[in-house]
C-alpha cells in the first residue's frame, strides 16, 4: 500500500486516452448549448448543426435555431477557447517560473486590460471609435510590455544570470505592474465614473460571456489553437525546466529565447481572451494543478489534458452561471472562483496526504 502511494499513478498512463479528448469536448459543447433557461433537446441541436455546417435541410423552430446557433453555441465555443488558453498559460508560467502560484494574469495582463477597458468606457478614450475589447487588448499589452521592461531592468541588475533570479524578477515586476495599473483603474473610476458605469465595468471584469457572437469565435478559436500548438511544440522544453532554468540550459534549451517566446505567446493569447470575455480568474491557476495530480508533470500528457479540462471547466461554469439563479446571469468569474477555491483546497489537502 505504501509503495502504491509513493509510485506515480501517472507513470503507466500512456497517450492512448488522447482519442477521447475530441469526444469529451464535443459532448461539453453540446451540453453547453442544450442546457439553459429554455432547455433544448440534443437532436434539435444536431439538426441545427447539420443545417448550418453540412447544408442539410431539417425543419427546426426558427427561434430555437437562433438561440442555438447565434447565442449558445458561439458562447460555448468561446468559453472552451478561453478555458483552454487560460489553463495552458497557467501551465506554461508555472513551469517556466517554477512557481506554483503563477497564473496567466501574473504579468499584469488583467490589470492592464481593466485599465484599458475603463479608459475607453469611462474616460471616453478614443471618442467612441474604440471598443471596450480593443481598449482592454491594448491595455493588456501595454501593461505586459511595462512588466517585461521592469523584469528586464531588475534582472540585469543582479548579474550571474541564474534562472531563479530571472523568475523572481518576473514575478516581482508582475506584482508591481499590476498594482500600478489597478491604481490607474481606480483613479479613472473615482475621477469620472458614475455608480452605474462602475457596476458595469465590475461586471465585465469578473468575466462575462453574454455579449459573445460569432465574430468573437473567429478571434478566439485561432488564438486558442495557436496557444495549444505552441505548448505542444515546446512540450519537451517545458519538461526541461523541471529542475530550473540552469538545468534546462545544460540540456540544450536556449533559455532566454525559448522562455521569452513562450511567455509572449501566452501573454498574447491571454490578452485576446481577456479582451473578449474579461478577466476570468482561477482557471489558469487551478486546472493545471488539478491535471498534474491526474496525469503527472510531463507536458506531453499535461498539455492536452489541461487544454481539455480548461475547456470543459469553463463551459460547465458558464452553464452554471446561467442556470444557478433563474432570470439572472452571474458573472462567470464568480462561478469559477466558487468552484475553483474549494477544488484548490481539496487538491492541497490531498497533496499533503500523498
Amino acid at each position, binding site marked *: 500500500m505504501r509503495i502504491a502511494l*509513493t*509510485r*506515480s499513478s*501517472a*507513470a503507466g498512463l500512456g497517450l492512448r486516452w488522447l482519442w477521447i479528448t475530441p469526444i469529451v469536448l464535443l459532448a461539453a459543447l453540446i451540453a453547453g448549448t442544450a442546457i439553459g433557461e429554455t432547455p433544448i433537446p440534443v437532436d434539435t441541436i444536431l439538426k441545427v448543426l447539420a443545417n448550418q455546417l453540412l447544408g442539410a435541410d431539417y425543419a427546426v423552430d426558427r427561434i430555437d435555431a437562433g438561440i442555438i446557433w447565434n447565442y449558445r453555441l458561439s458562447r460555448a465555443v468561446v468559453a472552451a477557447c478561453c478555458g483552454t488558453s487560460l489553463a495552458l498559460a497557467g501551465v506554461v508560467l508555472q513551469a517556466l517560473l*517554477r512557481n*506554483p502560484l503563477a497564473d496567466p494574469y501574473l504579468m499584469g495582463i488583467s490589470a492592464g486590460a481593466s485599465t484599458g477597458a475603463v479608459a475607453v468606457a469611462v474616460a471616453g478614450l478614443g471618442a467612441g471609435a474604440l471598443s471596450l475589447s480593443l481598449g482592454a487588448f491594448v491595455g493588456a499589452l501595454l501593461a505586459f510590455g511595462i512588466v517585461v521592461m521592469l523584469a528586464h531592468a531588475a534582472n540585469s541588475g543582479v*548579474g*550571474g*544570470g541564474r534562472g531563479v533570479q530571472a523568475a523572481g524578477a518576473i514575478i516581482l515586476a508582475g506584482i508591481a505592474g499590476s498594482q500600478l495599473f489597478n491604481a490607474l483603474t481606480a483613479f479613472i473610476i473615482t475621477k469620472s465614473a458614475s455608480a452605474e458605469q462602475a457596476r458595469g465595468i465590475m461586471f465585465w471584469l469578473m468575466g462575462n460571456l453574454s455579449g459573445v457572437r460569432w465574430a468573437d469565435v473567429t478571434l478566439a478559436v485561432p488564438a486558442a489553437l495557436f496557444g495549444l500548438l505552441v505548448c*505542444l*511544440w*515546446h*512540450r*519537451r*522544453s517545458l*519538461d*526541461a525546466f*523541471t*529542475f*530550473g532554468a*540552469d*538545468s534546462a*540550459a*545544460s*540540456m*540544450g*534549451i*536556449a*533559455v532566454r529565447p525559448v522562455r521569452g517566446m513562450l511567455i509572449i505567446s501566452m501573454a498574447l493569447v491571454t490578452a485576446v481572451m481577456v479582451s473578449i470575455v474579461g478577466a476570468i480568474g482561477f482557471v489558469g491557476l487551478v486546472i493545471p494543478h488539478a491535471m*498534474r*495530480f491526474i496525469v*503527472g*508533470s*510531463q507536458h506531453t500528457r499535461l498539455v492536452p489534458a489541461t487544454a481539455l479540462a480548461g475547456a470543459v471547466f469553463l463551459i460547465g461554469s458558464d452553464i452554471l452561471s446561467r442556470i444557478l439563479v433563474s432570470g439572472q446571469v452571474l458573472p462567470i468569474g464568480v462561478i469559477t472562483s466558487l468552484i475553483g477555491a474549494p477544488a484548490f483546497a481539496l487538491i492541497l489537502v490531498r497533496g499533503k496526504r500523498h
Partner: protein
Amino acid sequence: MQLSAEQLTWAVHGTPLLVDVNLTVASGQTFGLVGPNGSGKTSLLRLLAGLNKPKAGQVLIGNQPLHTLKQRAIAQSIALVEQQAETTDRITVREVVALGRTPFLSALQPWSDQNEAIVTQALLDVDMQHMANRLWHTLSGGERQRVHIGRALAQQPKVLLLDEPTNHLDIRHQLSILKLVKQLPITVIISLHDLNHAMECDHIGVMDGGRLVDAGPPKGVLTAFRLRQTFGVYADIFTDPVDNSQVMRFRSAL
C-alpha cells in the same frame, strides 16, 4: 573529447570570481577539481558547461570555441550535474533520467525504443532501476544525486561535468559512482571535497580564490605544503602498503 579553458575570467558586479584560469583536460581523462568552499569550483564548471559567458578568455571543446556553438549543440557533447537541483514537480525517477535525452529530440520526433534503452542503461549504471517509478519527492538525498547522474549519463555526453556528485552518497555509492566515472571512456571533470577520493583521478586541479593554483598528477599536487597553504590543514601523507597509493591523514586545522 578534449576540453580546455584559455585565460578564463569571470566576474559578477566587478568582483572577480575566476581569474585567468588555464586548463586542459585530455580526451578520456578524469580530472578532479578540489578547493575550499567559495574557491570557484562551481563557477568554473558553469563556465565550462556554457551556462555563464566568460568575461574574458574562452572555453574550447575539441578545437571549437564554446561560444560559437548553440546551446543544443553544447548539450549534445557536455552534460552537467549541478551541486543542487531540486523540483516540486510530481515526476518519476525514470522521467527525470529521460530528460537527459532532450538535446537529441525535436518537437516532431516521437520517443523511440533506442531512447528507452539508453534511459534503462543509465538507470542501471547508477543503480536506480528498482526505483524507476518512484516519485522524486519520495527519494533520499543520495538517491536524488544518483538520479541526476543517471540523467547526465542518458545525455551520452563526450564531456561530463560533475559538481560534488558524491555529496549525499553513502560510502558504497560514493565508491561505485567514482569507479563508474573513472571507467567511462569520456572526459570527466569532477569537483570533490574528499581529497583521498580525488587521489583516484588522473589529474587534479586546485582552486583557490578564483585561481587554478596547481594542476597535474595527484601525487605532485596534493602535498603537505598545498594542504596547509590552500586548505588550511596540517596533514600527514602515508603510502598504503597494500597498493602503494598515497593516503592523507588530516591532523588539525591551521
